[in-house]
């Protein structure tokens, strides 16, 4: 394994004057501030080994030379590396280049010179000697932060190429790539071969089949058409064309049509054209025939319908004009008006009689009631004269009672005066018996008795007078009522008389019979007259209706007549017209028969055309198949193609089998390599301890690619796929673990590792742990570490055995780094 003992850089980027560096066996540390050329030293090694720096490429570098120093006096770039392996072999590598002129663009090719033990070797042998590809170099020998971060952040499927190389799968992959390409190619070729074989085979089969079919068709044509084998020629078609033209001519003549049809040349193309034209003409003439037949049928139907209707209407109506109908109608209308008028008069008269009858009936009824009442009173109280006598008697009684009363008044005055006298005399002795008496008591007693008697008698008399007066009033009331009813009866008699007179005046006749029975009879008579008038009215209306119908029929007759006259171009009427229609119908029937007869001509033409068509199709196919038979692939050719196809299928099968076997072997190999890598990965991950909980890191491979899975040793179920839960500093430590484990395991002959500023984003503990990991790695590989971090540099110095240290103090344009 080669390690680097000496390094020389001149005219490269910021290193102007020659910078010689002797590297330590294990660790070389370049410490210096930012921008003083540390990374340039790292890039110098990269450029010396591979002649290019991919990171320093792109559009800007195409315009400006970023590799050669701008201040070197000659513009030459010179890089030297002296390497030595454990067998003492010394390899000298010199890379030279020139500064690009300002007029030049793009990269300028460098010159490589290699000597093994002083002997020049070619570039291929140099590459083989180190066994280190550029990709290997970036992942196993040159730790750039961006490269590792990109790697960590890459998707699982994108890590495949890295891991394949790093895990030694490149031979498998190369084989798989070549096989995949070959399998695709052989599949494509197999498809083409199969297609060609099947195409040609099918074409051959198809043409042979067509030839067989043609023979069968030939037999069918001969059988179906009745023509002989020798007639399957163009000459036969030419003869047949004459028959067709003749038939078409006859049909066209019958239909009064012209036509164009002729076979001008004796070749298949012209025969096809003739056939098409003949079909068109036949079709056209058939269509014309059908149209004509339809036209005739239509016309015949019209004429026949006109004839039938005219024949029906003409004899039925028997009138020659509408005027006749008008007169009849006017007469009927006048009759109708008279009937209507009579009906109205009768209706009014009936109404009058009815009204009067009701009035008379009511009056008579009232009169009868009055007479009845009078009769009742007379029966009960007597007639008027009796009542008047009764009143006079009562008046006489009153008079007598009043006289009697006056008498009592006179007696009472007399007694009162006597008692006054007595009172005034006051004798204490009875005048009669002369016995002592009490005169006052006696007078008082007499007064009382006299008064009582007076009152009693006067009350009786007044009561009798009062009774007599009441009787007079009652009798007078009866008398008044009788007088009143008699007056009303008289009035009603007058009213009845007036009504009768009105009726007699209205009816214009006098009657001696009772008025009510007379009026009832009159009403009954009026009803009979009204019914008779209504019947007459219905009769007249029916007649008018009939006249309307006749009118309509007459108008229809006129229309039918005009149509028939127009169709026959005649002015004939009546039976002359009917005969004319009959004659025209017979004429149409004749023409129809004539046209129908050309159907057989058309059928013959169509039959000929069918034969014509079959023969021409046969002749065409025969010609094509004969030509195709001359062009089809031979049986040997088809067999050869089949053989090629089968060989390709076999090769495809073989390559697919080898491809699958290689895949299986690669997977088995991959598992072994992953197991190996996991040991180293576990070691460095344990030293760097990026995460407190996830203390175990594994590389997992599945169909989706490679996965970095961190888990807890004590609880394997607790895990993460690194990216989701790790910080940037933690991801860096994972990356360094991976880088170191890969550097240990990837097989190549370059025992040298470059670490450019590996402590970025690490805290002091992290730097210490990284220094420890570097010390571990330095027992296996030679390391060159560039850093600006003094703490980290001190940790390296403390952790590693005898590191070689270069301290860059500053940088200037003329020299570059000042060490």
């Amino acid at each position, binding site marked *: 394994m080669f390690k680097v003992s000496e390094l020389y850089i001149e005219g490269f980027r910021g290193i102007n004057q020659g910078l010689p560096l002797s590297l330590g066996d294990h660790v070389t540390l370049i410490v210096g501030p930012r921008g003083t050329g540390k990374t340039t030293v790292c890039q110098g090694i990269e450029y010396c080994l591979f002649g290019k720096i991919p990171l320093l490429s792109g559009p800007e570098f195409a315009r400006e030379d970023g590799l050669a120093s701008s201040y070197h006096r000659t513009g030459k770039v010179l890089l030297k590396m002296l390497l030595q392996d454990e067998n003492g072999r010394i390899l000298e590598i010199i890379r030279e280049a020139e500064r690009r002129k300002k007029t030049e663009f793009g990269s300028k090719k460098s010159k490589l010179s290699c000597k093994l033990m002083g002997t020049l070797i070619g570039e*291929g042998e140099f*590459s*083989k000697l180190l066994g280190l590809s550029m990709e290997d170099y970036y992942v196993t020998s040159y730790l750039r932060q961006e490269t590792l971060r990109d790697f960590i952040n890459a998707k699982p499927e994108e890590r495949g190429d890295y891991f394949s190389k790093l895990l030694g799968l*490149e*031979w*498998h*992959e*190369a*084989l798989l*790539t*070549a*096989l995949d*390409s*070959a399998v695709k*190619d*052989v599949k494509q*070729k197999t498809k*083409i*071969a199969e297609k*060609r074989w099947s195409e040609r085979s099918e074409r051959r089969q198809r043409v042979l089949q067509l030839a067989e079919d043609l023979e069968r068709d030939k037999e069918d044509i001969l059988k179906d058409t009745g023509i002989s084998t020798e007639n399957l020629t163009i000459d036969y078609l030419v003869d047949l064309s004459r028959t067709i033209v003749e038939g078409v001519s006859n049909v066209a003549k019958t239909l009064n049509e012209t036509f164009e049809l002729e076979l001008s040349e004796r070749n298949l193309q012209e025969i096809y054209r003739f056939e098409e034209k003949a079909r068109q003409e036949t079709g056209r003439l058939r269509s014309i025939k059908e149209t004509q037949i339809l036209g005739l049928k239509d016309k015949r139907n019209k004429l026949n319908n006109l004839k039938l209707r005219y024949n029906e209407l003409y004899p039925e109506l028997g009138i020659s004009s509408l005027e006749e109908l008008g007169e009849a109608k006017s007469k009927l209308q006048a009759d109708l008006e008279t009937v209507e008028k009579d009906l109205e008069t009768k209706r009014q008269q009936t109404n009058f009689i009815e009204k009067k009858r009701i009035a008379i009936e009511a009056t008579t009824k009232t009169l009868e009631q009055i007479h009845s009442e009078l009769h009742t009173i007379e029966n009960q109280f007597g007639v008027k004269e009796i009542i008047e006598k009764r009143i006079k008697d009562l008046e006489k009684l009153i008079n007598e009672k009043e006289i009697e009363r006056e008498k009592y008044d006179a007696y009472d005055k007399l007694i009162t005066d006597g008692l006054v006298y007595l009172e005034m005399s006051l004798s204490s002795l009875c005048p009669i018996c002369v016995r002592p008496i009490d005169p006052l008591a006696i007078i008082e007693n007499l007064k009382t008795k006299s008064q009582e008697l007076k009152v009693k008698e006067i009350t009786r008399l007044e009561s009798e007078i009062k009774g007599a007066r009441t009787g007079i009033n009652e009798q007078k009331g009866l008398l008044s009522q009788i007088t009143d009813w008699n007056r009303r009866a008289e009035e009603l008699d007058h009213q009845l008389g007036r009504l009768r007179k009105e009726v007699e005046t209205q009816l214009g006749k006098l009657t001696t019979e009772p008025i009510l029975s007379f009026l009832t009879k009159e009403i009954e008579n009026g009803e009979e007259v009204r019914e008779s008038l209504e019947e007459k009215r219905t009769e007249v209306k029916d007649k008018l209706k009939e006249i309307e119908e006749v009118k309509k029929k007459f108008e229809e007759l006129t229309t039918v007549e005009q149509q028939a006259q127009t169709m026959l171009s005649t002015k004939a009427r009546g039976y002359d017209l009917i005969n004319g229609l009959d004659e025209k119908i017979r004429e149409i029937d004749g023409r129809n028969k004539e046209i129908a007869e050309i159907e057989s001509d058309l059928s013959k033409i169509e039959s000929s055309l069918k034969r014509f068509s079959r023969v021409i199709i046969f002749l065409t196919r025969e010609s094509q198949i004969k030509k195709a038979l001359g062009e089809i692939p031979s049986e040997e050719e088809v067999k050869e*193609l089949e053989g*090629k196809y089968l*060989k*390709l299928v076999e*090769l495809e*099968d*073989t*390559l697919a*089998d*080898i491809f*699958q*076997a*290689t895949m*299986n*072997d690669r997977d*088995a*190999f991959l598992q072994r390599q992953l197991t190996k890598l996991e040991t180293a990965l576990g070691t460095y991950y344990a030293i760097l301890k990026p995460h407190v909980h996830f203390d175990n890191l594994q590389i997992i491979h599945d169909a989706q690619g490679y996965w970095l899975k961190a888990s807890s040793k004590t609880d394997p179920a607790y895990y993460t796929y690194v990216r989701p839960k790790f910080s940037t500093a933690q991801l860096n430590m994972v990356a360094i673990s991976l880088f170191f484990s890969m550097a240990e395991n990837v097989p190549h002959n370059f025992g040298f590792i470059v670490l450019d500023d590996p402590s970025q984003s690490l805290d002091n503990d992290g730097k210490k742990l990284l220094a420890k990991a570097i010390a571990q790695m330095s027992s296996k590989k030679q390391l060159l570490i560039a850093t600006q971090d003094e703490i980290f540099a001190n940790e390296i110095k403390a952790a590693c055995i005898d590191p070689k240290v270069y301290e860059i103090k500053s940088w200037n344009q003329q020299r570059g780094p000042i060490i």
Partner: protein
Amino acid sequence: MKEQHTSLCKGIMEKLKNQEHSQILMEIFEVMSEASDVNEASTRIKDMLLKKIDQIVGEM
């Protein structure tokens, strides 16, 4: 054949479904052994297999 390739060839051959296919596999590894690196090997194998296909196909 190189030692590394012999081992690889043996591993793949054991995994073939049809041992009659091992003849072409051997031819592939003979070509692979002549190459100085994997890229060259891949190219040589591709060329060899394409040549084999073309031999079968010939003029179609």
